């Protein structure tokens, strides 16, 4: 590194207060990652019947914790840290009021702690509290009120965070009235606009229906309505997880490769497309729901297929930018340039492997999105196989890889060991390749997702692509490698935090090859894009929601609540599960109708 770079300040040097928020957010994310990984390994070994250390009835508490801690706390805390860095860095000015920034951090941390307690309390009979409703919390399964309250507080925290970044941008705009929105800030603002639209539905669902219902203020809810409102939020949330990865792929990866982003305008087009198309597609999670007309499902599918476009464009731009970097480093030939890339750098290799997995996840996603092909794999373990490639690798591995690059910038501490980092990201890739491939294959055999014991008394799975048992072993080995990889990542980070501070770690991000001056001005018109996004949402959802309310009533068609937190049930079911080997149906009939017990 030259002397000029030695003297350059890092993000921490320039914005010490913001750097602290970024570090706190990342550490919260990684704490959640640790918990999620612990629950993940117990779950993998339980499902595959390698080691069952908990009763099967507690599996669902574990699964709820795995889902919520990883896809809510880990991903979103990383996002708010990364976005705080990206906005501050690209606007090159501190946030307006750091107290507001700490306020949203506190809201998010407090909220997720409440939700976490309500879930984890399910492991003990001492506290009459549980939230084993899984990440999707479909009514009439009912969690303890604290679960819903915590989620609400957490989401309000993210809203304040978005407002904080919009405010920083507005302040910047007053000082720079004629300038284009810097690319990273543009990415943050479009993503947050999408988030506000998406979370409006889940906020409505929780505040109007689920929370009052869990408190006993209303007797019943409409299961199809709350489910539809969940998926109104549930699909865009996957892009909320993905956009931080995209931000890193677009703005950081090309730099690490030795080059620069290929096209700034196309990056903006891609983020605008996500803002427009992420939300009016949620019904594709409900292809097999009764009570929703086929036409609505078809519209949702068409939108979903067009949502492939921004990701396909991204594949092109990212590969082109990396190739440009390789050629800058002296790479030649049709594919020979690949050898010139910095494969020993864990940040680079991690992000590239994450991108490769995302391509595979994209293809299994096309199967999911195909309305009538979906029959074959709906609610089978194929689906978690798919999203462990997307959120579980494209997003999670990019976040870990990005940390190797970003952590020194926000702490002035060099990474403890790059070789361990490299080993860790490759291990993740191998573990996920094994686990996800076997999950897809089991899904085609008809093995369901979300179950403690996928083996049944009355039938056996046929074998293809290796039998059920062999695929289970692949899943268990893959899951174990992923757990080891997570521990290596966290260990490396903890040791990094013990390193002394040094100078000379500053990295700058070069502007794009084709800069913002090539982008039509209209791309920066956020008001226009938000308006179009809202119109598309209304077009996609007004009629289905009206039809659902018309059919089942606003407050539901006479369905009772099924709280999951009444403790005697769990004991009773443990007993029932113990005699599973015998005739299951008779056992349950003999022990009395369980529905009565649950009430």
């Amino acid at each position, binding site marked *: 590194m030259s002397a000029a770079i030695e003297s350059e300040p890092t993000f921490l040097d320039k914005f010490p207060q913001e750097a602290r928020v970024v570090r706190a957010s990342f550490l919260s994310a990684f704490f959640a990652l640790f918990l999620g990984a612990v629950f993940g390994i117990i779950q993998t070994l339980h499902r595959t019947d390698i080691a069952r250390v908990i009763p099967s*009835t*507690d*599996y*669902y508490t574990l*699964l709820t914790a795995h889902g919520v801690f990883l896809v809510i706390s880990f991903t979103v805390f990383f996002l708010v840290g990364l976005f705080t860095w990206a906005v501050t860095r690209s606007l090159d000015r501190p946030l307006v009021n750091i107290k507001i920034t700490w306020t949203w951090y506190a809201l998010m941390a407090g909220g997720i702690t409440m939700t976490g307690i309500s879930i984890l309390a399910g492991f003990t009979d001492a506290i009459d509290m549980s939230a*084993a409703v899984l990440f999707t919390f*479909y009514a*009439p*399964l009912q969690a303890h009120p604290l679960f819903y309250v915590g989620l609400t507080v957490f989401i309000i925290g993210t809203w304040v965070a978005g407002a904080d970044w919009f405010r920083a941008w507005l302040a910047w705009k007053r000082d720079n009235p004629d300038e284009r929105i810097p690319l990273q800030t543009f990415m943050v603002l479009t993503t947050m606009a999408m988030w506000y639209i998406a979370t409006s539905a889940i906020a409505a669902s929780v505040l109007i229906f689920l929370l009052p219902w869990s408190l006993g203020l209303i007797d019943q809810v409409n*299961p*199809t309505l709350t489910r539809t409102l969940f998926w109104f939020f549930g699909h865009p949330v996957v892009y909320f997880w993905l956009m931080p990865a995209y931000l890193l792929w677009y703005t950081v990866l090309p730099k690490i490769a030795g080059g620069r982003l*290929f096209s700034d*305008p*196309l990056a903006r087009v891609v983020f605008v497309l996500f803002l427009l198309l992420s939300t009016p597609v949620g019904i594709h999670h*409900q292809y097999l729901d*009764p*009570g*929703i*007309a*086929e036409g609505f*499902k078809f519209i949702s599918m*068409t939108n979903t*297929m067009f949502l*492939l*476009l921004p990701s*396909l464009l991204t594949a092109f731009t990212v590969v*082109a930018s990396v190739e440009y970097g390789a050629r800058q480093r002296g790479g030649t030939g049709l594919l020979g340039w690949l050898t010139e890339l910095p494969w020993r750098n864990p940040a680079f290799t991690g992000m590239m492997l994450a991108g490769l997995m995302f391509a595979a996840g994209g293809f299994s996603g*096309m199967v999911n999105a*195909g*309305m*009538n092909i979906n*029959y074959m794999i*709906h*609610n089978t373990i194929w689906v978690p196989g798919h999203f462990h490639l997307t959120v579980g690798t494209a997003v999670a591995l990019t976040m870990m890889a990005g940390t190797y690059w970003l952590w020194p910038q926000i702490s002035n501490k060099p990474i403890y060991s790059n070789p361990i980092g490299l080993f860790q990201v490759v291990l993740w890739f191998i573990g996920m390749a094994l686990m996800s491939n076997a999950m897809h294959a089991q899904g085609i055999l*008809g093995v*369901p*997702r979300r*179950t*403690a*014991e*996928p083996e049944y008394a*009355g*039938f056996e799975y046929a074998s293809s692509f290796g039998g059920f048992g062999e695929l289970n072993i692949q899943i268990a080995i893959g899951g174990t490698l992923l757990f080891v990889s997570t521990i290596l990542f966290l260990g490396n980070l903890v040791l990094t935090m013990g390193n002394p501070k040094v100078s000379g770690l500053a990295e700058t991000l070069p502007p794009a090859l*084709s800069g913002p001056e*090539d*982008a039509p001005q209209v791309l920066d018109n956020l008001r226009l894009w938000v308006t179009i996004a809202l119109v598309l949402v209304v077009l996609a959802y007004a009629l289905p929601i009206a*039809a659902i309310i018309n059919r*089942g009533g606003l407050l539901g*068609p006479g369905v*009772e609540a*099924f709280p*999951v937190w009444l403790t005697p*049930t769990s004991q009773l*079911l443990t007993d*029932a*599960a113990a005699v599973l080997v015998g005739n*299951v149906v008779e056992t*349950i009939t003999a022990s009395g109708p*369980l*529905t009565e017990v649950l009430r």
Partner: protein
Amino acid sequence: MHIHAYEKLWLAASIVLILLLIGSVTYGAVGPGVAMVADSEPPIDAGALDEDDRFAEPRVEQVGENEYEVYVVAYQYGFDPDPIVVPEDSTVTFYVTAEDVIHGFQIVETNANTMVVPGEVAEITVEVDEPSEYGIVCNEYCGPGHHVMEGTLEVVSQSEYEERIEGGDDA
């Protein structure tokens, strides 16, 4: 806005892929006739299934020469009737509803698969061919005993089917 020639090509290829995917699903709907579970059945009172013509007594019913209807109730944690017995080479329409929470109904290793939502009736029609036994699983988490919720579909020969009806089997 400057777009590289290769990128234009890629963009065009992407749009072709998207149209092909939409086309293949459309073909599946109009060609082989794969219909989606939809709103064909009116909503139902989940709390009063015992007063309903079809679901008070979940059963298999012959409605045409080779046509059968099956009324299934999913509950924590099982399906009624169980087993479901139908004759070979027939067209079977399942009407599935739930009396408590959301369940799933999947005939393992086939594409007969639907969500089962209390208050709604899912309708799926399948063709069964030669005699065989299939597992049925609930593939939507429905409570702490979810993993014990299963059933069986027995496709039997015409003669066995008649025997079983006469024998007073619950089919």
